[in-house]
């Protein structure tokens, strides 16, 4: 739970990192999310939206 600057130089807030860790989203996946914050920063809401849409996709996958 430390502020980490990833190798692409993107900054993630402590909360975003916390959510990513708990939802098992690796940094590589985090970096693909498009941010709406200042200078494209990924915000809490961006990540929560991403998680929501991802799980929706999972649910709608044909069995």
């Amino acid at each position, binding site marked *: *739970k430390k*502020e980490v600057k990833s190798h692409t130089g993107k900054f993630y*807030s*402590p*909360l*975003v990192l*916390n*959510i990513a860790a*708990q939802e098992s989203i690796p940094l590589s996946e985090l970096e693909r999310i498009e941010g709406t*914050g*200042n200078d494209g920063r990924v*915000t*809490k809401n961006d990540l929560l939206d991403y998680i929501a849409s991802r799980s929706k996709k999972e649910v709608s996958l044909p069995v």
Partner: protein
Amino acid sequence: MAYDVVVLGSGPGGYVAAIRASQLGLKTAIIEKESLGGICLNWGCIPTKALLKSAQVYNDIKHAQEFGIEATGKPNFEAIVKRSRGVADKMSKGVQFLMRKNKIDVVMGFGALKAKGQVEVKGADGKTQIVEGKHIIVATGGRSRELPALKQDGKKIIGYREAMVLPQQPKSIIVVGSGAIGIEFGYFYNSIGSKVTVVEFLPRIVPVEDEDISKELEKNLKKQGIDILTSSEVTSVDTSGSGVKAKVKTANGEVVLEADVVLSAVGVAANIEGIGLETLGVKTEKGKINVDKFYKTNVAGVYAIGDCVPGQALAHVASKEAIICVEAIAHAEGKYKHQPEAIDYNNVPGCTYCYPEVASVGFTEAKAKEAGYEVKVGKFPLSASGKASAAGHAEGFVKVIFDAKYGEWLGTHMIGYNVTEIISETVVGRKLETTYHEVLNAIHPHPTISESVKDAIEVAYGEAIHL
């Protein structure tokens, strides 16, 4: 000559919009019918804080003995009011200076939208002129809301304006409504020796606050001698005698309260009448002007900010809306490279400047649960704060609310000495999406009230040292 921006109203919405517009290279005019600075500087935030400071000084004198000072004193109501007016005037003059400095044209008079890009201004002399602007920002603010049972006559049934310039101190006053404004006036008059009764329709005072805050504030104000009737409603006021007789429907039946005056402090009504909104077809809803997140109305070239749009009726909200509105305009005009960021109205602090002060931001505990959060709550009583004890003001607490799942800081609710000065930390922390971890690792100075925020977080996470 046509301006880039014409601002209607010079409160903390309007005057800030005008300055920011001018800064960004937009030629700007501002129209004001009364005094520069609006309600906030002339009849709101500033003069009330001056009155409250006098009350605080007097309260300190009453308790001086506890601090080892032998003192006597008595309030001079006229002088208190005069000082308050002086402070307001100084600030209003400050706005005048800022308008000049930023080369903003000030047009005094009543303005109304006339046509696309046109505002008609009627001066004190009755003459009218047209001010033209590509972008028109409506920032006409609000006024004291009137209830049918409490028609304000300005003498015995008064609003906040009259309440801050009464010709003499009332011996007794009934305050209807217990939001920030009602509570501040109630506290002020009680402090200087008037008999105060607060009547609140809802089951608790400062009803927008966290329930724990309402309880603690009620307890403290009652201890100071204020009578408080919650779940109660003034149904009629008889002003025929020398004072007033107010019929109040309470949970335990009807009572009649007698007093010198009644202050109606039941909220704000937006100034949206007679300013030409209909002429241009600007949409309103529930008495406020409809806007998007950059404060555009449905009519191109017309914007609205501040107390006349939805959102908390607070000066800092009006000012921030002003900046966002203008930056969006400038961005569209190619004069500003950033697209502004919309306000998160759930991260707006609210303050009440009585004693104990109240300050809060974010979710209350109840609202957080309603929203589905599992919460971690920490409450730190200021009786355990060294600074509060040293200051002789150990009432109140700091309460923090975190999301148990991801650690998000959902809200802070504080009541006590100086807490209005320490809420910004939470706002910034929330803005930066902190978790409790970083706040605990940010060293808070000792001894301060502000370190109680850290203490409360420790309580929430079972790491309390000082409790």
